[in-house]
């Protein structure tokens, strides 16, 4: 019996251990590639930091877990008797401390230290000097409105909605007279906070700026405000990220980030809605 106790591993167990080792290596190699759209907003750096923290820590845990699993299989394959039947209740409790500590640090710690401060900042009020834009989503387009020189959005009323007045803008309201309306294109100045008022006319939508790390559902019946600071000039895509109907996949808009003076000039040249 003793002479036979040398482990006799089958090809199958080698294969299984090897695959379990290769999987996390492949994941880590892939995870190290650049996947995110090129960053183009201020707070986005913090979100990317959160994400990189997760990629590194969680990647390491994934690697450690799979290497251990593969090792266990390699180590004990072919063993012809059980070498450790049961750990003591105390040992089991003690081993459980590892996941408790690791998860508290990595998962909960990550949220508390890196995540929630960014979340809180974004959820807070926009800086006072922010440029105001309103985006009203509908199947399958983005209505974009600027308040005009008076800085006030004119009154809208659902009763006034029609194909020619897609926002239901009230002509009687003086604040409405200088409002500017565009479709599917949002112009913003670079380096200044932008405050976006989000509304929907029909179903849920989601205002997704992949390059700016912004995503906010647009909910009919609610006016939701978000803000961000675009920090790179250029043209960026806006996607809808909440299922809104058969045209969901083609609900594309463009975010045009202009130098500040060009933006001011562009805004002055826009015709008003009425």
């Amino acid at each position: 019996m003793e002479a036979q106790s040398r482990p006799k591993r089958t090809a199958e167990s080698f294969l299984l251990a090897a695959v379990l080792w290769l999987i996390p290596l492949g994941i880590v190699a892939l995870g190290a590639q650049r996947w995110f759209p090129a960053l183009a907003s201020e707070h986005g750096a913090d979100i990317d930091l959160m994400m990189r923290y997760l990629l590194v820590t969680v990647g390491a845990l994934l690697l450690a877990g799979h290497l251990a699993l593969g090792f266990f299989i390699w180590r004990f394959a072919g063993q012809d008797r059980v070498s450790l039947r049961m750990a003591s209740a105390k040992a089991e409790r003690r081993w459980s401390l590892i996941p408790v500590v690791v998860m508290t640090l990595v998962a909960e710690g990550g949220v508390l230290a890196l995540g929630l401060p960014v979340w809180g900042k974004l959820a807070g009020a926009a800086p006072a000097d922010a440029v105001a834009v309103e985006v009203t989503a509908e199947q399958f387009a983005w209505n974009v409105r600027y308040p005009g020189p008076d800085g006030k959005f004119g009154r809208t009323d659902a009763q006034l909605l029609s194909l020619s007045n897609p926002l239901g803008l009230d002509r009687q309201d003086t604040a409405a007279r200088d409002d500017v309306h565009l479709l599917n294109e949002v112009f913003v100045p670079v380096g200044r906070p932008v405050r976006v008022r989000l509304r929907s006319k029909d179903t849920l939508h989601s205002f997704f700026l992949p390059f700016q790390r912004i995503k906010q559902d647009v909910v009919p019946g609610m006016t939701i405000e978000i803000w961000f600071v675009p920090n790179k000039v250029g043209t960026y895509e806006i996607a809808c990220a909440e299922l809104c109907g058969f045209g969901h996949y083609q609900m594309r808009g463009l975010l045009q980030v202009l130098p500040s003076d060009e933006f001011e000039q562009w805004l002055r040249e826009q015709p008003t809605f009425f």
Partner: protein
Amino acid sequence: MAATHAAEAIHEPSGFIRRYIFSTDHKIIGIQYLLTGMAVAVVAGLMAMLMRLQLAWPAVPRPWLEKLLPEAMAGGVMKPEFYLSLVTMHGTLMVFFVVSLALLGGFGNFLIPLQIGARDMAFPFLNMLSYWTVIPATLIMLASFFVEGGAAAAGWTSYPPLSALKEAIPGSGMGQTLWLVGMALFIASFTMGGLNYFVTIVNQRTKGMTMRRLPLTIWSLLFATILGLLAFPPLTAAAVMLLMDRHGGTSFFLPAGLFFGNKLLPHAGGTPLLWQHLFWFLGHPEVYVLILPALGIAFDVLAPFTRKPPFGYRMTLYSLIAIGFLSMVVWGHHMFVSGMSPYLGEFFSVGTMLITIPSAIIGLNLMASLWGARLRFTTAMLFAIGLISLFGTGGFGGIFLGNATADIQLHDTYFVVGHFHYMIGGVTLFGIFAGTYYWFPKMFGRMLNEKLGKAHFWLTFLAFYGVFLGMHFTGLGGQPRRYYSFVNFEYLQPFANWNVFITLCAFVLGATQLLLFANVVWSLLQGPRASSNPWEATTLEWTTPSPAPHGNWGAQAPQVHRWAYDYSVPGAPTDYTLQTVPERQVPVTI
């Protein structure tokens, strides 16, 4: 006592219909559930294949598909509405009518009485009623493809207003009504089954079967059942409310100012967020309802093939309880960017991260169960080990999504799709497969073919990683889910090749399942006959013949003397000691 039991055992119905169709025998009902789940899986799986075909090669006309589906594929090109119906029904069917049916209905019914030493469920008739309620529910769901406007198309989450108004999408006509009716029936069925499981586990355990001696499968089913019973009713209420909004002129979920096709709708006063809260109050516990039994099965499959007790039985139990409790209070992590208060986002973020702790303990215990083991690589064992890998990879993805800040970028992208397929697609499927290879002998009295089984495992495991790992990365790149095609967006073009690769892997994954069907059919006819305990396991179901007779036990119900995992007890004549072996023959070790 024994006399009455014996009398019960004789009561085997003789007619084919009472025996195999309208049966009250928990084993037959379990097998019925399992087979129904697998049949629906074929349909829902084919839907996934159609979706992947479209996503890899959008707008390539396929005339052969037009012959098959003349309306949905007019000109051989899929309509966007049909794609969304596929998305919706694939999700609904897989979550509720495949995994719930197979894991809870199938293994739950089959195993509970057998593993606790009962002759049947506490309420056999209710059990039959539960199965025969889910059948019309399934048929109603499937029938919705053939009504005007097609099947429901607002996603398996059915968010209003899209799901409430037929003006919003064609599938929100009759198709969505059938979806709601089907769901309500499903929940009714689940409630009957769940009450039955609960009462059976609590009341019908045989002599000596204390709670601490239960196998982990039973524990996990018990917690899953409690979760389901607590979480499902709000969705029933929500479904009724949505039906009222759709047909009764109410506005639970519909605010004022909805404007469709140049027409202002008369609704006012509701909010779509209410539905989201109600849905996810069900939806989040539901994923644990599905995953807990798979984890329990993994422990019970690992034990006989490691020839040792699982590591950390007690800690696993406490973790299951903690997961069960926490899962009821973290639903809001599906709603970080929904427009709900950002303060709630913080609460749900912190709460969700707490779940990683008991989950990681369970993962560690599964792994540590291999330490010091005498490993036997059967197909069931391979699937259980694969399950550990998927639970790890999928679980780690969850740490990204439970984090509100990271979720801003990842929400509603393919990262989410990849993640939940690992958890409620992969872990559950591997649990079902592990359970099928393990208990098939007890169900049918024949062994499954191990060579075919292993081929099935390897192809499934590798193809699964191929499909759903890639989705995580396209998700990091911001590829939104529920898109009919990605051609309209420049920033998604780099992922076109990934989508082809994912589709090819999906085809392999789908085709591989034919091996299981071939195996089942061949083994039922030709497979070697199974002994009562082919795996040399310890739990009660292995003390009765394979297949187990009506009434499960002979004249005498078994008496339990030890916990479920007395493997390799020092000094015992064999390396497994059945739960029925008295203390005086083999010492009790826990």
